[in-house]
């Protein structure tokens, strides 16, 4: 339990891995994301939010410390900021030090060296971070190929009942997050719960039924599938992680510029979309638990991704670039009483089945179009929970434990509401 001397809102922070703004609430006409769209309809939605670096560990360390990569000095996966740059306080640590129970489920910090092989526990978290046991199979040979054998493929729809442990990491994370919500609710503790979902990160390992939402004949190519003529070579990312998967290796694509065959481009896009809908169903189950536990009226919900992902635009795939498709992220904040009008008898969050609902095509939430940055997540959430105001970082700030290089986005909430 936390210290209990907390007056502010609870916080649920949902972090998604490699999710670009391909969502119904961002105007995408193909994606079926009814649950995230529902969250958006009750939120302030930032349509031009950008990550500070389009790769997992540097982006996550940046927005969880409120500092830019030049200050965390993390551009790869191989150092821990507290030892390598400065002993910076983190967003969950700030809540923990203000009496909250702080909990991490799934991929919040990038696991490994960049978070001290502990997800920064115990600095950031009250309890040891949870990782789903089935995560270890993600990169193993669990994808059934046309030859009937198992492979480590990029495209990997699965029958969940047939995979090891009979489950998938994001399903386990949802279950654990709901279990933790029930626990803190029973204890009446104020909480900061961060839930990090793995999909749509590669491999595209998702329940195969989600393919039904996206018949391959309906899948188009990127509108600009060729490498632009005036693109400097240094700006191009050769998507090496994609190339390493067995099904892509078999395509014998030339390095670095060889295009992905058209039929496989459609397959990648179909698999990404299906992974997003699978993720959406997990988010829907989590949000409906928030509702059913009576927490929707006193919990701030922030939803973001660590960065985007190229789906064939400019002849590129994956992240690893400065293009908008790689840096732009979904970012939205649900704040009870602020982004929604006073509750009626109706539920705020009900689970929406993507197979049985016509997804929203226009974002009905409050929209803010000004460019904003993920590095501002820290100060925004802290201010929404009415924690003491974070000071701006001096330059340099390597010696300063508590400050931010972002700026609270709360001033935008007023203009968005108007």
């Amino acid at each position, binding site marked *: 339990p936390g210290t209990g001397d907390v007056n502010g809102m609870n916080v649920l922070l949902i972090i998604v891995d490699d999710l670009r703004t391909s969502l119904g609430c961002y105007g995408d006409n193909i994606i079926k994301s009814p649950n995230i769209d529902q969250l958006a309809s009750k939120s302030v939605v930032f349509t031009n939010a950008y990550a500070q670096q389009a790769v997992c560990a540097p982006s996550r360390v940046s927005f969880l410390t409120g500092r830019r990569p030049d200050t965390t000095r993390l551009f790869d996966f191989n150092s821990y900021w507290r030892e390598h740059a400065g002993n910076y306080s983190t967003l969950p640590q700030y809540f923990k030090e203000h009496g909250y129970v702080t909990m991490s489920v799934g991929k919040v910090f990038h696991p490994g060296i960049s978070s001290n092989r502990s997800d920064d526990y115990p600095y950031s978290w009250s309890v040891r971070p949870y990782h789903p046991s089935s995560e270890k199979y993600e990169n193993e040979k669990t994808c059934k190929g046309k030859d009937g054998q198992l492979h480590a493929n990029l495209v990997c729809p699965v029958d969940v009942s047939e995979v090891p442990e009979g489950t998938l990491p994001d399903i386990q994370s949802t279950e654990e997050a709901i279990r933790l919500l029930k626990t803190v609710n029973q204890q009446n503790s104020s909480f900061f719960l961060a839930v990090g979902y793995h999909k749509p990160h590669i491999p595209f390992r998702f329940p195969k039924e989600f393919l039904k939402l996206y018949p391959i004949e309906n899948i188009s190519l990127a509108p600009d599938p060729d490498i632009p003529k005036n693109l400097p070579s240094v*700006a191009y990312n050769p998507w090496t992680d994609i190339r390493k998967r067995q099904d892509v290796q078999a395509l014998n694509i030339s390095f670095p510029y060889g295009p992905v065959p058209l039929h496989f481009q459609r397959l990648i896009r179909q698999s990404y979309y299906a992974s997003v809908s699978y993720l959406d169903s997990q988010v829907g189950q989590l949000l409906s638990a928030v509702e059913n536990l009576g927490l929707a009226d006193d919990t701030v919900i922030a939803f973001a991704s660590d960065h985007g992902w190229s789906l064939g635009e400019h002849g590129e795939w994956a992240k690893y670039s400065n*293009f908008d498709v790689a840096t732009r992220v979904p970012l939205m904040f649900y704040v009870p009483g602020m982004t929604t009008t006073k509750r009626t008898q109706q539920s705020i969050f009900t689970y929406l089945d993507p197979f049985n609902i016509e997804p929203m095509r226009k974002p009905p939430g409050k929209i803010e179009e000004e460019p904003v940055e993920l590095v501002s997540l820290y100060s925004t959430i802290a201010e929404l929970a009415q924690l003491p105001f974070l000071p701006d970082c001096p330059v340099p700030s390597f010696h300063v434990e508590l400050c931010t290089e972002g700026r609270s986005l709360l001033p935008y909430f007023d203009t968005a509401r108007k």
Partner: protein
Amino acid sequence: ENTESVAYSSYPRPSDTPQWNSDLPDLKDIRIMGYSMRTSTYRFTLWVGYNPVTFEANITDIHAQELYLVKTDPNQDNNLFNKSLHFDLAQRVF
């Protein structure tokens, strides 16, 4: 309140041309850093030399520049940067 909203991003590279570690260079291999600024009207990216030991970018060591206009080129397919027209853009912006 009088300043335009800007979102900054950066990405490291080991070399000017793509190689196998271009997507994810280790710190020791980083030689170039691409700094981007994104406003509501454009994205400008400056690729400059980078020292991974001192963590310093050398703004006089320019490797490439990109300029895209949001309104007319939302997918960022037409790099408008042209040395003759925009030769001092980096100096003005940074």
